[in-house]
């Protein structure tokens, strides 16, 4: 028993387990402070809520090797420019609605969720809406009655009617517009946004 080499000893590995765990936890905590500061709304990588007053576009960044969001000219949602507080309130209503309606158990947001329906990260910019002018109207109609306005692309899958109020519909669209301006390091790959007027 006394011939157990140091690298196979219980005591050595207990110390290893304690030190490794403590060190890794410390590094994670330090990185968390940095990352949380970097992802506050308006801090750069995640847009301010008032971004919904602007056009959102994507441009190839040759240095980073993928597309990055670009905040363009004024293009208020539903034609009305909101104050910072109003914008935050509307996006917040949308986020709450997305949670309360359990959207994430069919869709993915930022790629997380379920895989029964398309990813919503850049749904505001999806070319499927046709053009910039029709987009808000089509999104509203779809969210109000997704069964009648279903576009199943041959899968037969249609979204159930979640009975959203008019305010909730506006909130969800505002949330989706805001989320589409998050810098996701190029996810999803190769996305080509809907053509919009000069950014």
């Amino acid at each position, binding site marked *: 028993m006394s011939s157990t080499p140091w690298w196979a000893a219980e005591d050595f590995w207990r110390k290893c387990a304690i030190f490794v765990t403590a060190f890794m936890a410390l590094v994670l905590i330090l990185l968390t402070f940095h990352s*949380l500061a970097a*992802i506050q709304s308006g801090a750069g990588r995640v847009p301010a809520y008032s971004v919904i007053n602007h056009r959102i576009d994507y441009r190839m960044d040759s240095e980073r090797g993928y597309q990055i969001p670009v905040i363009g000219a004024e293009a208020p949602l539903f034609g009305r420019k909101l104050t910072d507080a109003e914008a935050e309130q509307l996006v917040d209503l949308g986020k709450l609605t997305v949670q309360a309606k359990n959207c994430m158990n069919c869709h993915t947001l930022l790629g997380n969720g379920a895989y029964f329906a398309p990813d919503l990260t850049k749904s505001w910019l999806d070319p499927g809406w046709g053009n910039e002018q029709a987009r808000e109207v089509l999104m509203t109609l779809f969210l109000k009655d997704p069964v009648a306005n279903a576009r199943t692309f041959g899968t037969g899958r249609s979204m159930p009617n979640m009975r959203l109020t008019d305010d909730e519909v506006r909130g969800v669209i505002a949330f989706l517009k805001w989320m589409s301006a998050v810098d996701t390091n190029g996810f999803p790959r190769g996305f080509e946004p809907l053509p919009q007027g000069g950014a």
Partner: protein
Amino acid sequence: MAEATADIAATEVRATPAAAKALSAAQRLALRYFLVAMVLFLVQMVFGLLAGLQFLMPDFLHGALDFNVNRMVHINAMIVWMLYGFIGSIYWLVEDEAGVPLVGIRLAQATFWVLTIAVAVVVIVFLVVQVGPGEMRSIWLINEGREYIEAPRWADIGIVLCMAAFFYNVAATFMKGRWSGISGTLVLDLIALAGLYFAGMFYTTNISVDQYWWWWVVHLWVEATWEVLVGCIMAWGLMKTLGVRRKIVTTWLYIEVALMFGSGILGLGHHYFWIGTPEYWLGIGGFFSALEPIPLVAMVVHAVYDAGRHGFQSNNHPALAWLIAHAFGNFLGAGVWGFIQTLPQINLYTHGTQWTASHGHLAFFGAYATIVVAFVYLALQRWRGDVWMSGGLPDKGRKWKWALALLNVGALGMTIALLIAGYEQSFTERAIGGSTWQAYFAGQTTVWFVQAMYWRMAFGVLMTVGLLLLLWDFLTIGRGETRAAKVVPGDANTR
């Protein structure tokens, strides 16, 4: 036949099974936890089948029991039954490990009922009310809408209180009795596991901040603290089934903890590639998560080496078989299936596709379902009177062997089918189609994707048959058995 004779010859005659010691109150409580776990396992399978069927027949139950509801019940029943299985396993081993009766048994019994009633209410609300208006009221009472931790806030608070009571039972019992490497690791791990749950108990508008903390719960549970928890359970299980020396399992446990937390804590970074977090996570997450399979290899080596070293002479063949299934399932499902898509260069194409579903199915089954099943067998053996469960069972062990085969083949078959679906999705939707909604549906309608969904369904049915057989075996194994449990060599070291 020769084997059976040899087995019997190796048996020492003990007290007859009928006169075996009655179960302690904590062990009876563990059996209750196992019972609820198995009911929820069945619920998980039923709702998995419904959700799987909706891929093939989208109109099935549309507007009544939609995919989002079925999928939510499917994954939540799973999380809860595995937690029940872990709690049951810990109540099962705590007295043996501490050497004293459980401290606070009445509190433990009350906690069981509170937790079980809360789980039942949550599931009924999920099924009947389903969703609510976009108000905080819905988050508090109906559904938080965050994958895996959908339970409404009132239930979160209840779960935390129940976990605190459970923690008290376990920690106080060890404090009154004796500590060991296993119990020390277990108690520290339970603190981390319970503490992490708080990271999921708040609401924020900012989706990136939301996801940042959400992954603290989801990743640091299933890829860190749950793994260490099953490492503790496994260590105890190997001592009990094979008679492995305590010093060996404890040293291995420390090695596993060092490797698991060494890779898994910063491996969290592989979830921070695309949620808005800074680019340094691409390097950190890619590197550390690529190391995550290493502790799982160590666990396979440990389990298989120990089993071989003891000539597979176990006192509980079904439990040992499931422990070995755990070692391989954990390595394949959590290790290999995670590794194949963990580098950001690959993950950019696979994140949020059926690749993830494929990984999830094998990882949860392989790492966690298997070890709970092993513990149920250990508990049943004792409950039925410390009876013989080695070779030469009355039905030649057909039920447990077929259940083992069907469940494992079913899980692996679903995993491979979903991986094929995932390949199709990555190519068609991401690489070629440019990730638009049209590209998404183009991927979903390719012939191979659709075929894969049929195969997934078929293997899901196979697995369900396996589960029914397993439950039948649980109800019958060891009944009417007159032989006492085999005494494994070295058994005395562990008692």
